[in-house]
C-alpha cells in the first residue's frame, strides 16, 4: 500500500521534470521571439523609409522599386518578420557598413574579448562576494556585516565608467601597477595564434607566458571594476540567504546536537544556499555580459560593447542589431539555463 503510494509519488515526481523543462523552453522561445520582434521593428519599421536608407535619395525609381521588392516590403508585416527570422537562423545578420564584412564574422571576432572580461569579472565577484556574504551573515552586526552593506551600497550607486576612469588614472598613470587600456601591449599584438579568441587561454596553450602575464596585467583592472557590481550583489544575496537558512529549525537541531559551528555553517546551511546562488550567479553573469559596454569604452577593450557603440555612431544598423541579438540571446539563454539548473538541483522545486 505504502509502497505503491511511494511509487506513485516518484512517478509524478519524474513526470514533473520534463514539464518544467518544456515550460522553460517555451519561455525561452517566447523571449527570443519577443527579442527578435523588437529588433525587427527597429530595423524595418522605425526608419521612415528603409529603401531610401540603402539606395539614397538620388536613385532612379526602378532601382528603388527593385530594392523595395528585394527587401520584401510589398509583403505583409508578418511574412516580413518570418523572413527575417529565417535569415537569423541561417546566421545571416547582414553586412556591416563599417567593416564591409558579414556582421556574424565581426561578432565572432569581438565576442571572445567580452566573454573573457565578463567571465573573469564574475569569478572575482563569486570568490570575493560569497565568502564575505557568509561571514556577514554569521557575524551579523560586526565589521564584515557593515562592510557588505557599505560595499553593496557603493557598488549599486557608483557609475562604473567613472570609477574605471579614476582607477585607470590611479593604478595605471600614477602608480603603474597595472597595464593600460586594451587587451594586450601593442608589442605582443598578433603574436599568439587565436584558437579560442580568449587571450589567456590561447597564450597558455602556446606556452607564451610573457604574453599571458601581460594579458593578465591588462585584464585585472577592467574585470575588477566590472566585477564590483556582481561582488556587491552576490555578497548581499549570500548574506540574505544565509540568514534565512541559519534561522531554520534544522540548524538549531544541529547546534543542539553539538555539531561544530564550522560544520553547521558550511555543511548544513551553505549547502542549501549554494543551490539558491546558482540563479544569482547566472543573473550576474548575464548582466555583466551586457553591462560590459561602458567598461569596454573606458578601457578601450575591443569587445562586443565597443563594436556596438562604434557601429552606432556610424549608423551601421546591421551591426548594432546583430550585436543586440547575439548579446540578447546569450543573456536570455544564461538566465534560462541557470533557472533550469536551479529547478533540477533543488529537490523542493522539483
Amino acid at each position, binding site marked *: 500500500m505504502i509502497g505503491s503510494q511511494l511509487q506513485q509519488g516518484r512517478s509524478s515526481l519524474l513526470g514533473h521534470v520534463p514539464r518544467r523543462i518544456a515550460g522553460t523552453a517555451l519561455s525561452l522561445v*517566447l*523571449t527570443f521571439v519577443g527579442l527578435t520582434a*523588437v529588433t525587427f521593428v*527597429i530595423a524595418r519599421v522605425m526608419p521612415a523609409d528603409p529603401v531610401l536608407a540603402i539606395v539614397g535619395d538620388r536613385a532612379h525609381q526602378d532601382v528603388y522599386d527593385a530594392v523595395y521588392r528585394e527587401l520584401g516590403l510589398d509583403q505583409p508585416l508578418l511574412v516580413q518578420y518570418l523572413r527575417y527570422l529565417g535569415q537569423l537562423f541561417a546566421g545571416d545578420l547582414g553586412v556591416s557598413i563599417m567593416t564591409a564584412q558579414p556582421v556574424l564574422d565581426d561578432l565572432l571576432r569581438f565576442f571572445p574579448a567580452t566573454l573573457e572580461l565578463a567571465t573573469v569579472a564574475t569569478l572575482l565577484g563569486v570568490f570575493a562576494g560569497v565568502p564575505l556574504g557568509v561571514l556577514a551573515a554569521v557575524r551579523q552586526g560586526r565589521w564584515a556585516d557593515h562592510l557588505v552593506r557599505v560595499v553593496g*551600497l557603493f557598488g549599486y550607486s557608483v557609475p562604473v*565608467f*567613472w570609477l574605471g576612469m579614476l582607477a585607470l588614472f590611479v593604478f595605471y598613470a600614477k602608480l603603474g601597477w597595472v597595464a593600460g587600456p586594451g587587451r594586450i601591449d601593442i608589442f605582443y599584438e598578433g603574436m599568439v595564434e587565436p584558437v579560442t579568441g580568449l587571450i589567456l587561454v590561447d597564450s597558455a596553450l602556446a606556452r607564451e607566458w610573457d604574453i599571458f602575464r601581460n594579458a593578465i596585467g591588462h585584464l585585472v583592472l577592467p574585470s575588477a571594476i566590472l566585477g564590483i557590481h556582481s561582488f556587491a550583489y552576490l555578497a548581499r544575496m549570500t548574506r540574505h540567504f544565509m540568514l534565512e537558512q541559519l534561522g531554520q529549525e534544522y540548524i538549531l537541531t544541529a547546534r543542539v546536537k553539538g555539531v561544530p559551528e564550522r560544520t553547521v555553517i558550511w555543511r548544513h546551511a551553505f549547502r542549501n544556499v549554494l543551490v539558491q546562488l546558482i540563479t544569482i550567479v547566472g543573473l550576474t553573469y548575464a548582466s555583466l555580459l*551586457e553591462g560590459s559596454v561602458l567598461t569596454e569604452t573606458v578601457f578601450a577593450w575591443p569587445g562586443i560593447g565597443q563594436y*556596438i557603440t562604434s557601429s552606432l555612431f556610424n549608423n551601421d544598423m546591421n551591426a548594432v542589431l546583430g550585436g543586440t541579438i547575439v548579446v*540578447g540571446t546569450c543573456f536570455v539563454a544564461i538566465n534560462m539555463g541557470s533557472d533550469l539548473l536551479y529547478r533540477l538541483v533543488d529537490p523542493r522545486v522539483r
Partner: protein
Amino acid sequence: MSAVRAWLLTDIPQSRGQAQCQRFFLAWLVFRKNGSAVAGLAIVAALVAGALLAPWITGSAGVTPDLGDRLRAPGLPHWFGTDELGRDIFDRVMWGSRITLYIVGLVSVIVVPVGLAIGVVAGYVGGWVDSALMRLTDVFLAFPRLILALAFVAALGPGLENAVLAIALTSWSPYARIARAEALTLRQSDFILAARSQGIPHLRIIVSHVAPMCISSVVVRLTLDMAGIILTAAGLGFLGLGAQPPTPEWGAMIALGREYLLDQWWVPAFPGLAILVVSLGFNLLGDGLRDVLDPKSRD
C-alpha cells in the same frame, strides 16, 4: 505643537483625514529612527532643492564659454574649478541636477502607470488574460536592458527624451510583477467582495480599490530602482547617446572631461561624484522606505 502631536497620536481618529495623517506620522516616527534612511532623504531633498534653487545659488547658467578662465583648479570663486571652456563646474553640476530630476521623473511617470495597469489587470482578472500579460512581462523582464536601450536610441536618434524613452521601455516589467502579486491577494479580500456585491463596475474596483493598495510596494521598488535609472541615463550620456552638449548632463560632462583626467582631475571627478552621491541617496532612502512600508522583507 503638543496639540498637533496629540491629534496625530490619538487612539480614536475623528475623521478619515485624521486617520490618514496618523498613518503618515506613525510611519515617519519609524522612518526617523533609521539614520541612513534619513541621510538618504536628506540627499534626495538636497537634489530637489539644488534643482529648484539653481538660478539663485549659481553664478551662471553653466553653458557660456569663458576661455580666459579655462581649467582653473578648485578654489574661490570656482568651488569645483572650471572646465575646458572655462565654465564653472559647480554651476554645471547644479543645473545638471535639474536634468537628473527630469529623467527620473519622466521615467517614473511612464513606468509606474504602465506597470500598475498591466499588473493590476492581470492579477484582478486572472485566467488567460493573466497568463498572456505575465508572459509579455516575462519577455520584457528577460531583455538585456542596456543593449536594448542602445538599439532604441540608435533607431530614434541620440537625445535626452529618446534615452528616457528607451530606459522606460525596458524597465516597466518589475512593476507589473509586483502589482500583480498584490492584486492577486487583494482579489480574495472581503472589501473587494463587498464592493463587487454592491454592483460596482470592475473598472472602478480596479482603479479606485485595487490599484491604490499596490502603490506603496511600487513606490518602494521605484525608489530602489532610481539609482539604476540614473546610472543608465548617465551611461547613455557618457556614450554620447543621451543629452547632447552643451547640456550639463552629468554623464556627458564626464565624457567631455575624460581627456583632462591626467592633469585636471576635477573636470570629470565632480560630475561623477554627484552621480554617486545622488544614487547613494536614493538607495538609502529606498532601503528605509522598504523597512517602513514593507516590514516583511526586512532581514
